[in-house]
């Protein structure tokens, strides 16, 4: 393994097929779950690999270096950066409020002004709301739902996974049995049923999407921790007489989070799509003119023939945002993959 081996991201066509396989085999099997064997990380002090000794980069530092060279990661990062900026600056850049209907006098049931209307660059919707403003406010609510629900899934899943992986024994058995039961229901259906039972509010949607992600995160962290348990550095820590909780918290957990973080990035894409799906099914609550991409699509279906742009624009926003998170997640996975790293 010498310093002049080319980076696989730059020369994909020269790679033997097997090099790509580790990544492909797990890509886009949404809801994406990372196979533990592909998520394994090398022991921290790999003396055989002197390539990066001069740089002295950590696993994450190196992953970042690799991502900077991947066009997939750059496109994903740009999309996400734009999305976050728009969402955060919504009150300042949106011409009108999210539920405002400035153009209600211009709209009749048969005539909805489309793209290019003076004063309303992307036209009006059937309530007389400014479509551009609603898309901008919609970004804000998507970001909010995405981040909060993924945090719920992440925290819940990590707690369960860490308990199962850390304690083992009957704790592990009980937790994993419950996780198996939850995994026996398709993800979207679970989110739908939780949201339906919990009442129709935006908060219920966040909980539903987050809770539906918990089993995946729990299983992922557990298997990742189990894999680390046999590693040499854990044996070393045990030999030194460190307590079990100390080993779990400061050795196993930090080394097992890689796949979980990749999964969280991909889960953000799922969360944005699922949030739109749930509010499309009418589970979001609120008034019909709420500035939410999924809700805008629901309303738009009644005007498909007269104003198709009302469905196209929010749909496009959902797809582009999801694409951004997916690209970022996939390239993060690639950069953290030890099989790709070693080449």
């Amino acid at each position: 393994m010498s310093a002049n081996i080319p980076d696989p991201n730059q020369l994909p066509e020269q790679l033997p097929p097997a090099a790509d396989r580790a990544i492909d085999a797990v890509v886009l099997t949404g809801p994406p779950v990372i196979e533990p064997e592909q998520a394994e990380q090398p022991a921290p002090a790999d003396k055989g690999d002197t390539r990066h000794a001069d740089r002295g980069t950590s696993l994450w530092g190196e992953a970042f270096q690799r991502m900077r060279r991947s066009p997939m990661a750059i496109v994903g990062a740009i999309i996400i950066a734009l999305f976050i900026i728009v969402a955060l600056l919504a009150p300042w850049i949106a011409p009108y409020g999210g539920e405002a209907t400035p153009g209600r006098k211009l709209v009749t049931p048969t005539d909805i002004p489309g793209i290019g209307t003076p004063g309303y660059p992307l036209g009006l919707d059937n309530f007389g709301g400014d479509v551009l403003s609603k898309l901008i406010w919609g970004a804000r609510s998507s970001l909010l739902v995405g981040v909060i629900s993924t945090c719920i899934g992440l925290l819940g899943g990590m707690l369960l996974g860490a308990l199962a992986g850390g304690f083992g024994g009957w704790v592990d058995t009980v937790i994993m049995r419950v996780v198996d039961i939850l995994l026996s229901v398709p993800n979207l259906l679970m989110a739908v049923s939780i949201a339906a039972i919990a009442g129709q509010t935006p908060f219920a949607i966040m909980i539903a999407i987050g809770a539906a992600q918990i089993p995946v995160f729990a299983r992922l962290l557990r298997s990742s921790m189990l894999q680390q348990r046999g590693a040499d550095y854990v044996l070393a820590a045990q030999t030194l007489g460190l307590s079990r909780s100390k080993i779990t918290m400061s050795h196993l957990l930090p080394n097992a989070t890689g796949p979980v973080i990749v999964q969280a990035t991909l889960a953000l894409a799922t969360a944005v799509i699922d949030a739109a799906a749930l509010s499309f099914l009418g589970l979001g609550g609120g008034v019909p003119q709420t500035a939410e991409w999924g809700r805008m699509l629901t309303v738009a279906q009644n005007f498909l023939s007269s104003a198709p742009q009302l469905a196209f624009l929010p749909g496009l926003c959902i797809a582009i945002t999801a694409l951004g998170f997916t690209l970022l997640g996939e390239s993060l996975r690639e950069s953290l993959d030890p099989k790709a790293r070693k080449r």
Partner: protein
Amino acid sequence: MLRFIAKRLGLLVITLVGLSLLLFMWVRALPGGPATAMLGEKATPEAIEAINKAYGFDRPVWEQYFTYISKVMVGDFGNSTQSQRPVLQQFADQFPATAELAFFAILFAVLIGIPLGYWAARHYGKWQDNTSVILSLLGVVIPVFFLAFILKWIFAVELGWLPTDGRQDIRLDATHYTNFYVFDGLITGEFDAAWDAFKHLILPGIALGSIPLAIITRITRAAVLEVQGADYVRTAKAKGMTNKILRKRFILRNAMLPVATTVGLQLGLLFAGAVLTETVFAFQGIGYGIAQAISNADYPVLQAYIIFIALIYAVINLVVDLLYGVIDPRVRVK
């Protein structure tokens, strides 16, 4: 083999009982309980009282669960609070619709996905490969219901080639024995009815099949790439096998193993994914039933349908595992 099936079925029963318990607790753990959920926030205490009495929500939870389970054992899942029809009967009406749709969707995904993935792998790193990778990425990030809208708008509203919604034109007054409309049309000889039902399947089928299509393409590509580089393929090539035999017996046969699992898994997921597609096309299957149950707070239907879908999902997975032994002699259970 029988022991394997028995063990899996045992696990399945435990899972379903656990799931029903979780669902049951979840409905009752909410503030106000199911009565508030059914009547809405503004319900009067008297009305809540009446509902609690009528449905037995005032009894202890374990007693309610026991009553529920013992009724379920004899096939009584309660009545829909909306139509007052037995839930099981409603499910029996709607299931064939979704089964027909899911079958069509998976057929579409397999017939396009496998050749596309194979084609991409044969041209690894070239434009064909990149196209398939981008297509499969798009298939996953475009929301199903958005794709359903686009298809409906282009092919049903603008071009008028295909029907916008429903399962069959009611004016045809077709005879239905099994509720599989295409099949019914074929066995009764009403070929125009079968053709009409088939036309109603095309758009929702394509929309529903988009995610499996993307995933099957991706998995096929990865599997073919892996097998192509395997030692036994190289050995076979060195022994002078013709390309045709090499592709058919060595590459395709082995590459199909992970693909088969994926197809099964995806088929199971389609029964849940149908909620969105069926809503857009007003296609009266179980997904449509769930959407209706949600908007009407029809808990007996919702609760039973979730369990049914989990059951379908598990049974399909079991069948896939068994089929796996048929196509791959190496993993056959002794």
